[in-house]
């Protein structure tokens, strides 16, 4: 009830003062470049590429200024343009390589159904494994393993696991289906599991 009231009040004052957001491209770099860069680099794990995408976002925004209606904040508006740039980048990456690979569902592999389990039959990790979780060395090992993931798996895995972004949002942003997302997550986790087994739990 209170929320509703506050909402109405803020709408009301906005209406009364007829306040619209205004764009000021002179301040864009100072105000938003770091935010946009951070946003991009968590989704595209390549600083050089992320820089180019941020730059292009500002240029596109400049061209699209006349379409800005002032309803959303300046930052929200810039992020919406950035999101489209990131999707474009993902489409490019998909068409170059890995599309066929990612589209394959591990249920449909005919004779090879279930073979992933045979290939990497879980080894018992021993009782001391649990107690060693907190150690710094394990932290280094897992970060190394994550860095070794293929770029596309790493992005999706981190968005889901580290940043806790909703499945639906990731799918929208990266232009993939949810079953596709779970295949990627599964493969990433399998690889991480294997990597940790080889580099950590065996010793």
């Amino acid at each position, binding site marked *: 009830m209170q929320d509703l009231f506050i909402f109405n009040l803020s709408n009301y004052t906005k209406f009364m003062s007829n306040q619209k957001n205004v764009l000021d*491209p002179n301040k*864009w*770099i100072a105000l938003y*470049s*770091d935010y946009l*860069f*951070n946003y991009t*680099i968590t989704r595209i794990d390549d*600083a050089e590429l*992320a*820089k180019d995408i*941020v*730059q292009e976002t*500002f*240029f596109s925004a*400049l061209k699209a200024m006349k379409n800005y209606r002032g309803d959303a904040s300046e930052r929200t508006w810039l992020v919406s343009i950035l999101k489209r740039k990131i999707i474009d980048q993902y489409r490019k990456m998909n068409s170059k390589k890995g599309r066929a690979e990612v589209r394959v569902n*591990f*249920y449909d592999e005919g004779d090879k*159904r*279930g073979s*992933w*389990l045979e290939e990497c*039959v*879980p080894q*018992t*990790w021993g009782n001391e*494994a*649990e107690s060693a*979780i*907190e150690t710094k060395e*394990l*932290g280094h090992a*897992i*970060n190394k393993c*994550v860095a070794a993931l293929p770029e596309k798996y790493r992005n999706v895995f*981190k968005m*889901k*696991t*580290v*940043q806790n972004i909703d*499945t639906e949002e990731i799918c929208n942003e990266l232009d993939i289906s949810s079953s596709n997302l*779970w295949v990627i*997550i*599964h493969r990433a*986790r399998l690889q*991480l*599991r294997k990597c*940790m087994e080889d580099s950590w739990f065996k010793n």
Partner: protein
Amino acid sequence: MGKKVMISCDEASTICDKTQYNEATFWDKLKLQLHLFLCKKCGLYSEQNKMMSKIFKTHLSNHSHHQLADADKKAIEAELKKQMN
């Protein structure tokens, strides 16, 4: 119900992953539990999957703050100014 109760190891592993993100349905979890009861390998996988989640939670941080280099900012700004005129 028309839904099958017995699931393959592949399906079990997907549900297993989803539970790590709290995204498995009640029916999914039920099927998984039954499968884990019958399949030792998946049971082990499931245990290790939980442990991996704990490891991720403890050691993968989201705190890295990236910044554009000042030189890069200036270059973008200069180009932007050029396009404004």
